[in-house]
């Protein structure tokens, strides 16, 4: 069953998708082991989304430990943040655009310890790929 992006149901499905992706388990063994490996995705309005929303994702040792919507960024303490518009995130969730490519182009602005990202590039790719591995519906469509 397709779930609405963004919603808590979508976060739950993303967590499941991450945990059933063998590449995540294989490449993420060291992710979050001795540093804060959580992410906050800031989804800015546009493309059907009226108000900024936040998706929090935590992963450690190749497993997703938490995936949820948060009301305010101050509710969590992410190690990394990614900021982009709903229209751009939608394309990634649909699998039409690549998250890494979006980061390279500056479509998504990321903050955090870049050397951790570089050291775990395959893990980042695996998590990003899992985002489009299940059916979703979208605001504004």
């Amino acid at each position, binding site marked *: 069953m397709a779930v609405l992006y963004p919603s808590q149901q979508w976060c739950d499905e993303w967590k499941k998708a991450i945990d059933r992706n063998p590449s995540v388990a294989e490449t993420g063994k060291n992710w979050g082991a001795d540093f804060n490996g959580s992410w906050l995705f800031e989804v800015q309005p546009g493309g059907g989304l009226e108000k900024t929303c936040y998706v929090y994702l935590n992963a450690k040792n190749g497993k997703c430990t938490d995936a949820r919507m948060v009301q305010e960024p101050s509710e969590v303490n992410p190690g990394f943040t990614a900021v982009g518009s709903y229209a751009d995130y939608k394309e990634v969730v649909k699998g039409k655009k690549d998250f890494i490519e979006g980061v*390279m182009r500056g479509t*998504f602005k990321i903050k955090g310890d870049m050397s951790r990202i570089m*050291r775990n590039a395959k893990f980042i790719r695996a998590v990003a790929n899992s985002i489009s591995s299940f059916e979703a519906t979208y605001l504004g469509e």
Partner: protein
Amino acid sequence: MREIKAGGEELNGLGAILKQVMEETIQVPGTWKTIRRLQGTLVVREAESQVAVHIEFHRGEIQIQNGSVDRPTAYVEGGFEELSAISSGQVGPIRALLGKKIRAGGNLWKLLRMSKVIINRKP
């Protein structure tokens, strides 16, 4: 405090990542010793997005800017995973080159020296 300058418009994502990496590597005495007298331009291009940045070395002044330049001193091109593996010190640039994981050209002697600024070996 040694610094990396950003020239021109706001850096693209590749540039923003490399700038942060370089800000750490230039504080490493051995790396600084290798690059402080270099002159020239290194182009780094991410192969899938074709996003590029160029890093200008001018005797201890280092500036990163979006885009490529004509006739750089050296260039390196590879996918995100490959560039990341090099930049994090997991794979040496020569090994990556010989294994055809990346493409490189120009003055290879200078490339090896210049590339030290984008290699952060911290665990």
